[in-house]
């Protein structure tokens, strides 16, 4: 009787312990693509950059963009809305980091923008679920004669189509 009880106990314990031991191994096996897609942690998004030069013509600009929180990677730089800045602007490769970029452009044509215009779109890969915060500094904005002009720079999350 005593032995039967011990045997029963061992069997019961085995039935409990084995699945428990097995569980971590099952968790190690990777999930299917569908589940991964639901819990996706990497997204791509455009960030639109605007400069408002007031009543002055904008002939050149340079700005620095970086993420102060969250994780991003810059994956492309697109031109702006005005014909003078439609070509994708240049970036400084030596200053390029995963989440920081310095972008500049100039135009010497007669048709230059005034007021608030979209001058560039920065394409981003956002890693993780945290929504990034950005810091953007307008290093310089210049008029056709090369003098610095007062201007403000802003950014908004672009729309996806």
């Amino acid at each position, binding site marked *: 009787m005593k032995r039967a009880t011990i045997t029963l106990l061992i069997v019961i314990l085995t039935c409990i312990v084995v699945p428990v031991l097995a569980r971590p191994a099952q968790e190690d096996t990777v999930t299917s693509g569908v589940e991964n897609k639901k819990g996706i942690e990497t997204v791509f998004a455009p960030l639109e950059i605007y400069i408002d030069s007031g009543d002055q013509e904008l002939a050149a600009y340079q700005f620095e963009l970086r993420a102060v929180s969250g994780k991003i990677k810059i994956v492309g730089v697109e031109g702006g809305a005005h014909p003078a800045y439609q070509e994708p602007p240049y970036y400084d490769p*030596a200053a390029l980091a995963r989440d920081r970029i310095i972008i500049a452009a100039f135009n010497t044509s007669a048709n230059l923008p005034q007021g608030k215009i979209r001058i560039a779109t920065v394409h981003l890969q956002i890693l993780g679920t945290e929504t990034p915060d950005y810091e953007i500094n307008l290093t310089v904005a210049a008029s056709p004669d090369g003098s610095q002009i007062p201007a403000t720079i802003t950014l908004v999350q672009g729309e996806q189509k």
Partner: protein
Amino acid sequence: MKTIIFLIKTIVIVAILLLLYSIFTPALSRSRELSQKQKEEYERNMRAQEEYCRSLEEAEKRSAKRAPSRTGRAFMPSSPTTGGYTEGGSVGGSSVIVDLNVAPRRAGRSIPDILLPCSADEIWVIARAETAVAVVDDGETPGCGTLMGKLDDTEDEVPLPLKHTDVAGHIAGYIATVDVTQQFHNPYDEKIEAVYVFPLPQNAAVKEFIMTVGDRKIRGIIREREEAEQIYREARNQGYVASLLTQERPNIFTQKVANIEPGKAIDINIKYFNTLTYRDGWYEFVFPMVVGPRFNPPGSTEGVGAVAYGKSGSSDQKTEVQYLKPDQRSGHDISLSLDIDTGVTIEEVVSTNHVITQSSLGPERMLVSLSARDNIPNKDFVLRYRVAGRKLKSGLVTYQDERGGYFTLMLYPPDSLRHLKRAPMEMIFVLDCSGSMSGAPIAKAKDAIIRALKKLGPDDTFQVIRFSNNASQLGPQPVPATEENIRKGIKYVESLNGSGGTMMIEGIKAALDFEHDPRRFRLVSFMTDGYIGNEVEIMGAIQQKLGASRIFSFGVGSSVNRYLLDRMAKLGKGAVAYIGLGDSAGQLIDQFYDCISHPALTDVTIDWGNLEVSDIYPRQIPDLFVGRPIILTGRFTGSGETAVRISGNVGDMTQDITIPVNLSDNNAQHAGLACVWARKKIEDLSNQLTYDNNSDLPGEIKKVALNYGLMSAYTAFIAVDSAHQTDGDHGVTVNVPVPVPDGVRYDTTISY
């Protein structure tokens, strides 16, 4: 005793329970056995399996609504005799390769099965036969899945995602700025990813990368290669239009463009700078149009595989090029224009391989265009133009920015060398007799060797070595260049034909491994198309075995591997020359003999005067041969005028040359110089990698490439259009096949 029996019974029961548990929970045992790598593979397969199942369900829903499509659902190589791909089943009952990423087909212009890839990251290899089963496409068997429109009576046109390549170059002095635009489009009724392996000049400093989607242009970002590849994969899998440019060799690149929707077009623009070669008053601009089929030694996997159209993955090489059959043509064509501004009068222009049109914009400026009648990209575009005088207007070009100053200096051999006679020579001719040389290339090479043999002097000795799968030679030792021996040598050369592989290492060993005759100047001439995938091994062997020899490499053919031939000559302290199929071998050999018939200026040193210079490439100044200047590229500080003094030895004599230099000359400046210098530095570090195991070298290459925004083996350009997400995860991968280079026989080079 009873206790022992009791314990044994208990253990048996537990064991049975464990056994039963493991049988009913197979995932348990599987997961324990999986290594991390296997787990990742398993994850990928599981994901792919689900996608496949989903696509099957969708396909079944569609097929229920209309007549079944001609193409299959899963793509598996069929038997060697039926060709193409068939639905389901296995190959020879032993191997099953299933492309799980292939979406179900719709009616209309579907992607030919033959274009579908079997690359490692997109197939799930369930089992592989011990002996690989080749899939033969006869191109005629119904159901093989190729969609072809008739071009003319003899050629079939293959609809492909690469429609057109436009090349627009501007040459200032001896520096070219070239814009290459590849126009991709999707002629099918489902989303695709296009993959195109293409060549650029081996010294191209690839600086800019722009992706155009509709009227929007997105500048690509330079990243570490692995990071860029990962971003690309993620963007592709999420349905974003993305493009990735990677470098496989300094002259071979891969362009990938993901998620091209049906009917849509995407342009990729690449900009590069490079320096032109200059010989005896002639500049040479080269734009390669096709990657030649490479031979890879058995066991290698890092090479460049050459496979038949539709046989993706069959070479087992990291990079693979698909070749069209001789009777097939893709719709891909090429246009090319050059704006040449030399600064001195242009006297003559010659295009060796193509028909061109030219118009003069003044004595020093000319526009040259490729004729529309000659727009098949199957051979190098080679343009040579002669300028007034035997020297450039200015050999020095500079550029300064916030990082400092950069310069290139073309260094001329002294004219006085032309008045001196050379020492006796030990001439070793090494002829590539592999299959790719068969036909016109080997005929040209043989003509060249015979011409060279006839020019040998009585004090010279010579040897002729041939190699393909192995190497053999005229005799055990070099023989004196007597009339009788030259006759024997010519007879031997005439008997050689092209077939088999390209085991160039055997040719290198045979040419460099025997004892050098100290009374003679040993010169090794390689005649080859350079169609090999193991360039690094060859360069390492030259570095190790060169000794007192000098290597002159002759590229023979319409689209040779200039990267290999240039590097062989540089490492071999000699020079390189190219014999196109339209060139006169005799004329080239005469120039070669003019070059070697005078002593070289050796042990060259430079006194830079007031100029503070650093990081000059090449690090060691090579010997200066008559008529063959070399280009030095470096950094400098300072400005104003100075004099550069060059010293070297000609036999026992010392020669000095003085070059006046004006760093403030605004007419001799070029904004691309910083990139040209950085590209030279990368080349120098890459050369070191062929013989030096220093683990810091890749990091140094990467650092230079990232700082200057340049392509390298360790960096890549990535561009993602995050503003538009296409439906579905990603499209079917379609490789862009190319024609075999002009003059190269398909049947002797494409083995898979």
